[in-house]
């Protein structure tokens, strides 16, 4: 099976661990990803201003590229790319006037009316692979690993692009359980990690991010599983700052969900690029016996 794939800029630089592990894991499941031949940045944030169509050009252009390749579906890994593309897609499907303005402006491109479907890898695993088949493919169950999923804002909001039931989603729980891990509920799994506030208002951002870490730790999580490089930045890379302000918190490893998928499917941990995880993620897997200790 082949699957159209939109990577997003960060996955080609700082978040190679998110991309490489996903592509290898999909290979184990018999799925070849086909990256869009041409693509540009999705715009990262969906523009909410009703009259601001210029910011829709970038995501819509990506969708046109997918359509031009004959794809009926395009898969994303990054939550923010997913959100931006899926919402731009709905705009093109549902708003006739804006669709016309955008198509007229991009007259050098094929006309687009939302023909391609934007999905996130978690949806693909659930709907196209199926949890039972995934479970059967697991070679190294993530047993003894207490994992708390972190949806963040963009996987389940707004309602019309939610990858699952929006108020109490279970897709991440089902994913963790299919891999043989233990799901840990956290009240803050869909609270904002502070997003770009980490740059403009770091104090408030660290407060917000610390609540996410605390909630997961209080419930007994060994690690967070997430799907967004920005969340990873705030909760992983900036965790040192969180711990500095909150010395009662313990370090909490963070994983991209695709890394967990890959190790469970027996992919070489080297491919999963754990060296890019800012937290001691590989060490946790070694300690739990999920991957063999490489460091003597």
């Amino acid at each position: 099976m082949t699957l159209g794939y939109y990577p997003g800029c960060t996955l080609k630089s700082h978040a190679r661990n998110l991309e490489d592990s996903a592509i290898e894991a999909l290979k184990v499941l018999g799925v070849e990803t086909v990256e869009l031949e041409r693509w540009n940045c999705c715009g990262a944030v969906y523009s909410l201003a009703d009259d601001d169509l210029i910011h829709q050009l970038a995501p819509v252009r990506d969708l046109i590229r997918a359509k031009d390749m004959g794809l009926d579906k395009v898969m994303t890994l990054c939550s923010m790319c997913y959100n931006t593309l899926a919402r731009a897609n709905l705009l093109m499907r549902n708003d006739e006037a804006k669709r016309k303005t955008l198509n007229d402006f991009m007259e050098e491109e094929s006309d687009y009316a939302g023909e391609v479907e934007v999905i996130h890898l978690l949806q693909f695993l659930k709907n196209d692979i199926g949890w039972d088949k995934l479970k059967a493919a697991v070679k190294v169950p993530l047993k003894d690993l207490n994992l708390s999923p972190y949806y963040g804002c963009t996987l389940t909001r707004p309602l019309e692009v939610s990858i699952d039931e929006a108020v109490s989603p279970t897709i991440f729980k089902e994913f963790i359980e299919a891999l043989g891990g233990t799901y840990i509920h956290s009240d803050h799994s869909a609270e904002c990690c502070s997003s770009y506030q980490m740059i403009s208002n770091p104090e408030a951002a660290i407060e917000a991010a610390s609540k996410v870490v605390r909630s997961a730790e209080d419930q007994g999580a060994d690690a967070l599983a997430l799907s967004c490089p920005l969340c990873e930045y705030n909760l992983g890379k900036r965790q040192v700052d969180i711990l500095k302000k909150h010395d009662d918190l313990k370090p909490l490893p963070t994983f991209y969900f695709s890394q967990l998928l890959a190790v469970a499917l027996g992919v070489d941990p080297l491919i999963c690029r754990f060296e890019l995880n800012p937290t001691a993620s590989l060490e946790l897997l070694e300690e739990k016996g999920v991957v063999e200790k490489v460091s003597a």
Partner: protein
Amino acid sequence: MCQEAPLAEGKALAITAELIPVYIMGKKYMVPESLTIMKAMEYAGYQFVRGAGCRGGVCGACGTVYRLPGDYHIRVGLACQTVVQPEMYLTQIPFYPANRTSFVWDEIKGEAEEVYKAYPELFRCLACNACSKVCPMDIPVMDYIAAIKRGDLEKAAEISFDCIQCGLCATRCMGEMAQYHIAQMVRRMHGKFIDVPSEHCAKQVEAIKSGYYDDFMKEIMALGTLDPFKQDNVNDDVKKLKELYKARQGEPSTSENEWTPDSDYAILK
């Protein structure tokens, strides 16, 4: 209609072409329909001090924008390559202010972050594609900017390879960047850090340094100074220069490092 027209090289030539109206910076001129924009401008009395270089479509000095009646599209062409069309409104944009960051080349390591630091405006691209639409070399400018944004310097170098630095893309950018300067930095980094080193190029540089070509150079320099506005330049020196120019050899773009020239001007072995 037949008439005499002065041409760039100072020769008079019988023009048998129809005269057509063109508007150069808004003023109407009747020019022979077979001329390029550059020659038509000279025909109309303009003299190029800037805005012309190679006259062969490679130097990028002569970028020109024009519009045709009843069509809102902005059209572009190199003045030295594009033939005039009836009723076209045109102006040359030989130069457009565009910042080029200076950096210490020896300190560059070949990382995308260095490009981001030198040209942070890169991230103002909104994918409007206006740049690609005006590129006279048909380069998908937006795509090389997109590739740089995601750190794919190799792809960006490949896409922008044919850029002649005409600057027209920068005239249209809503992000106000000078795409071609950014791409040039990337191609230089690509050449130094990513591409396979070319052995014969290194040899050639050695040959130049060793003084192997000094005599050839002196020979050429002794051929006298030419005044492009004089009619009597067709002397022996010019003939010799032309011969040398025609006999010059260049590495074919398809060669894979195994090419060597076959004349006297060969690379030192």
